[in-house]
């Protein structure tokens, strides 16, 4: 079903429907529950486990992905909300050869256990896409929804600053 072509009769998505969307550029058609969480679909049906779940309620950012280029929490997005859209996960980042963000994280100690890292990197991606030379305030705002328990954010901040200085 294509959401954008709903006709006069009000469309409905039954408990189950065929979700059609792009993940990292690849088309997927999957039978899912309309209210299923995007993060579960990615992890369990598309078998991409780079996107993590930690709080399940939008409060930590471990599940951050880009949806049509916008940062979202995959634990808050429901299947029907991604129909016809395009999702970028950590696995799809850098497949074009541009691994600047990842390199910066590697060199500046932007992670330790790595569990927040996929989401954190996606949030950084959303930031530098919008503001290539972020200020301290920009960094604080853009990453405010992504918790990291290990690094104390020092390495993450240095990684973003390294990107801004263009020596990733």
């Amino acid at each position, binding site marked *: 079903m294509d*959401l954008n072509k*709903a006709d006069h009769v*009000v469309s*409905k*998505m039954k408990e189950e429907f065929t979700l059609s969307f792009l993940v990292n550029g690849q088309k997927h058609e999957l039978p899912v529950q309309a209210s299923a969480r995007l993060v579960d679909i990615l992890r369990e049906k598309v078998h991409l486990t780079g996107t993590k779940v930690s709080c*399940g309620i*939008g409060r930590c*950012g471990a599940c951050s992905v880009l*949806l049509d280029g916008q940062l979202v929490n995959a634990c808050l997005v429901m299947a*029907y909300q991604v129909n016809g859209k395009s999702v970028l996960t950590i696995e799809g980042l850098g497949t074009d050869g541009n691994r600047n963000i990842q390199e910066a994280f590697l060199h500046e100690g932007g992670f330790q256990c790595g569990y927040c890292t996929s989401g954190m990197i996606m949030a950084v991606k959303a930031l530098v896409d919008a503001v290539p030379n972020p200020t301290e305030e920009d960094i604080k705002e853009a990453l405010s929804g992504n918790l990291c328990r290990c690094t104390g954010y020092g390495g993450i901040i240095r990684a973003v600053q390294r990107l801004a200085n263009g020596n990733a």
Partner: protein
Amino acid sequence: MTTKKENSSLASSVIWTPTTIQEALAKKKEFGADACFISGGTLLQLQWENGNKVPKNLISLQLIQKMQGIEVERDHDCKVLSIGALSTLATCQNHSLVTMERKLLSEVVKHIAAPAVRNQATIGGNIAGRSGDVIPALLVMDAEISLCNKVSSLKKSVWSWLKDKEDQQDDLLTQVHLPINEQERNMHYFYKKIGRREAFTAAIVTVAGSMSLNELGELDHVRLAVGGGDNLPHRLKATERLFKGEKLSTVTWKEVYSSILKEFLPTTDAFLSADYRKKVAAHIIISELQELVFPSLK
């Protein structure tokens, strides 16, 4: 202990995707209490997580064109910034018309949740949830909202909508209107959200205010509003009256202080008392008004 994941009722919900306001209202009428509107769904999911019942029917507003977009309109001789209820908070923060015409809204939204949530959450949902952090700001901006139900559609000030206790569950909030002519009158605004951490947290208290000084140096158009978190948002009408015809130099701040403490009735939770919230609201309001006369370094 139940969580959303465990809430099997969600899995069996049907999601309706009307494309017009009329269709949405018809669906709501058809299913009544067994249905609810859903925009971004961020607040609803929190409520479900906390054990609220998931209705059998979810009426997604996502595809209703009429509820999208931001534009400047004329209403009689007033300029009005009209914001579709489906505009995400991120759009409200970054849209050029908002940053040009109503910077305050953009500032306010910046303090709500975090970017990922703001990309999904809508301004309509924030207001309709009745405790959203934008509400105090809307109150001091004299904002209006457009509401539609099966029989009528009308415009109402946010303040009177909040005060109306009658059940408006079935009303669809379609637009938010912010008058923008006022700015020419030299209005000053402030907005502060205080939370238990610097960002990305529920409000302990949210306060907003507006005021101007007339030619006589008297305070004019003083509007003060409080809310945030579980506090019911409202105007501090009695306190506002204390400023009528006063100059900043003649205001008795102690009186303002005790008036706010009396008028604001916030909640208490496991972490902070109502008393504390009152004081914080009062201190912020007073400091902001004082800043107006004696601006210091911020």
